[in-house]
């Protein structure tokens, strides 16, 4: 979620139960601002919180102008000392974040658009999804370089708008049903939760520009998903 709208976003995500305590929130706001200034990022996202046994990691990501470029990830927390393990905790943390991002970071359709020159930009005319669109999985894309697009048939590709539909949609995620879509507060908020990486919550208020995702969890994939559906 965007650092600028952190408070609002946290309020909207609260339905999942895990949030931030007031002192954390206050300190995060400050530090995210500082990060933005120091590293000169275009946008800073608060990615989420990975719960550890002893302490938690707070992760932030910085985006440059090109939204799809590789992001810089910053973390704050106390790394565990685990001498017996071969891998450093830091490496493991980074790889978990990367996995989660590649798998389940999502964005609504139309929020980014691609210019003919390559870089993707935030779409300033994005007014939010309509209610009927918001309930469909196909209106959400994975926030990463597309993998499945080339496999689409030509017929399907003809319907796509190349400036908006340049990422994979959630429709064809395997296993099917690995996303739970819910409307909260009547129809005023749509919340998507990933079942593959439990703890990933994405929210969007239809017809407004507010959307974002946050991960709060232990950083473990739910391999039992096929049994659980």
């Amino acid at each position, binding site marked *: 979620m965007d650092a600028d709208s952190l408070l609002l976003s946290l309020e909207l995500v*609260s339905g999942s139960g895990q949030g931030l305590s007031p*002192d954390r929130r206050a300190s995060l706001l400050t530090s995210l601002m500082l990060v933005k200034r120091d590293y000169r990022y275009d946008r800073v996202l608060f990615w989420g919180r990975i719960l550890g*046994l002893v302490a938690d990691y707070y992760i932030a990501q910085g985006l440059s102008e090109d939204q799809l470029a590789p992001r810089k990830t910053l973390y704050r927390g106390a790394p565990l000392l685990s001498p017996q393990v071969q891998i450093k905790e830091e490496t493991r943390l980074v790889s978990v974040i990367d996995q989660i991002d590649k798998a389940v970071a999502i964005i609504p359709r139309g929020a980014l658009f691609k210019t003919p020159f390559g870089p993707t930009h935030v779409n*300033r005319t994005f007014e939010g999804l309509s209610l009927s669109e918001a309930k469909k999985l196909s209106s959400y894309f994975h926030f990463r370089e597309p993998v499945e697009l080339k496999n689409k048939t030509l017929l399907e590709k003809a319907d796509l708008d190349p400036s908006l539909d340049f990422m994979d949609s959630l429709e064809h995620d395997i296993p099917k049903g690995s996303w*739970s879509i819910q409307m909260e507060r*009547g129809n005023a908020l749509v919340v998507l939760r990933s079942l593959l990486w439990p703890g990933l919550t994405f929210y969007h208020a239809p017809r407004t520009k507010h959307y974002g995702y946050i991960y709060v969890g232990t950083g473990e994939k739910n391999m*039992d998903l096929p049994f659980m559906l």
Partner: protein
Amino acid sequence: MEDLTSPKQEKENQEELGEARQSWEGKTAASPQYSEPESSEPLEMKQGPETGRQSRSSRPWSPQSRTRTPLGGPAGPETSSPAPHSPREPSSTPSPPAPPRQDLATPPQSDRTTSVIPEAGTPSPDPLEQSSDKRESIPLHTSQSERNTFQQSQQPKPHLCGPRDVSYNNAKQKELRFDVFQEADSNSDCDLQLPAPGGSEGAPSMLETAIQNAKAYLLKTSSKSGFNLYDHLSNMLTKILNERPENAVDIFENISQDVKMAHFRKKFDALHNENEMLPTYEIAEKQKALFLQGHLEGVDQELEDEIAENALPNVMESAFYFEQAGVGLGTDETYRIFLALKQLTDTHPIQRCRFWGKILGLEMNYIVAEVEFREGEDEEEVEEEDVAEERDNGESEADEDEEDELPKSFYKAPQAIPKEESRTGANKYVYFVCNEPGRPWVKLPPVIPAQIVIARKIKKFFTGRLDAPIISYPPFPGNESNYLRAQIARISAGTHVSPLGFYQFGEEEGEEEEEVEGGQNSFEENPDFEGIQVIDLVESLSNWVHHVQHILSQVRALQFSIYQGRCNWFNSIQKNEEEEEEGEEEDEEKEEPDYIEQEVGPPLLTPISEDLEIQNIPPWTTRLSSNLIPQYAIAVLQSNLWPGAYAFSNGKKFENFYIGWGHKYSPDNYTPPVPPPVYQEYPSGPEITEMDDPSVEEEQAFRAAQEAVLLAAENEESEEDEDEEDDYD
């Protein structure tokens, strides 16, 4: 020309202020290669054009200006009067030439003035260009000069009629045929009575014709969509001028798309909005009812309040503490839940109630309230279970009587362990759930041991509908409401803790009951509890105790594993012995130990430091809520075994809470249990055992043997006959 609407007027304005057309060759609509407006010319003139310029993502202007310099020359005299004085108001430029021009100039001018303010111009490089600037400024600021072509054309063309191409630039990008305009521009002069000093050739009639052709082309309706370019462009420009987005030229295509889509949307809006907004209004209505309920009861309120004070917990206070720990549902949501709980306590005779937590589901979530009814107020349906069991027994007996000849199966279903009485063990509390605050509360049925046993073996997501079936192996006896209840029981048993000393055993329980009960059942609050230091609570797990009875796990595994799944040991030994007597078979399956050791769970109020680890992961994690201000921090306990279970205490107060999917954590992946081996139901004896068919040799041997016998018999007969014959002789 004619009086047009202002956008049109702008266009026309720009038309007349034509420009170097050759530059158009290279232009491909909107080539945003030049980030900074080299078109600095208009700058000096008025900042207005800059607005336009910048919004157009800067076209290269300087070359244009260069090309236009000669233009500016002849035009100079007419416009240059105000020209050198760029700061002068925009309208000054057009004013001298011709009044009609002024008319046209006015509408853009007004825009210009407004646009002047936001943007400061970029430095204008060439004072010479100012004159041409002026001219161009007018069309510039309004025109979205996609055409950077200017830069390309270096040939000065004596087009006095201002940057007409600019006008066309902003007009459209792809659809326009530049050559058309080029021609028009080159030929036509500022036909709007702009005195074309020197540069303007071409008879007005040609110009007019050209313009009219161009306009007619623009007005041509598309065969596919029914729009025409002219209207579309006007709409777009209007929208842009109304909204004034930054860097409009960058999002120009999107704006164009939006305008087109808006046409379609209009017809649907009326219907769509109603359908879509209905659920929002519904839930708002329901929640409004929640807020109103307080006012409805006027007289009884005092009475109710007395009881309500005991029953209704202070949810907001607990929520505040949990928020310090970073756990919670948000203030609004919690308050609504609070009101819903109040509604629950008002409609049911409840002794005590607690907000247990929230379980997430696929389609909807569950809000769970833990409730203790007042004495004697339970509405339990105990009868149903027993009736069902009896029926089953009766049926099996009937079958046996009828089919006597069939071998009797000696399969006896393992006796169902009866559920615990209400108010004891796992059924100590009654649970109510609702999907959202405002919706009605539904009571969950009491839990049966069999359900808990199976619930331990499966792992399923909740859908959010209480009547959804659970399809799993082993098959779960019940639907989602039962599964939910079983998981709630497991979570409560595993994670409900309190600080040491908060509860103490009641004083009446003095006996040692080893045969039946595993330990004391009841506890009560300790009035002398003085609280424990928060630091102590964090540092040592032995300061916390479980106050919910542990659910017993399986007994020693036998072929007939008897799983308990309840807190109080159910003594089923006698019945087993009876069965043994009946059977009297020697099959191994029937062997049962004479005595099954009673499993004893950890006694109530065991410190949680005794909890088992899961593969080196401690079962609980403790934290202080805040490291920055430790004197007011609270102790937070987080379960690693049931992710999502939290408990807090500030020394005196404590509370438990659960928010999550409702599953236990297991470091290993889930594997469904293997189906049991095929059961030997019937005694295998010759009458039901299938015999092998004889092989060929056997058959032949058999036949040979039979023939031999026959032969022997015949021989005997023939001998006898012979004997008889002999006798006769």
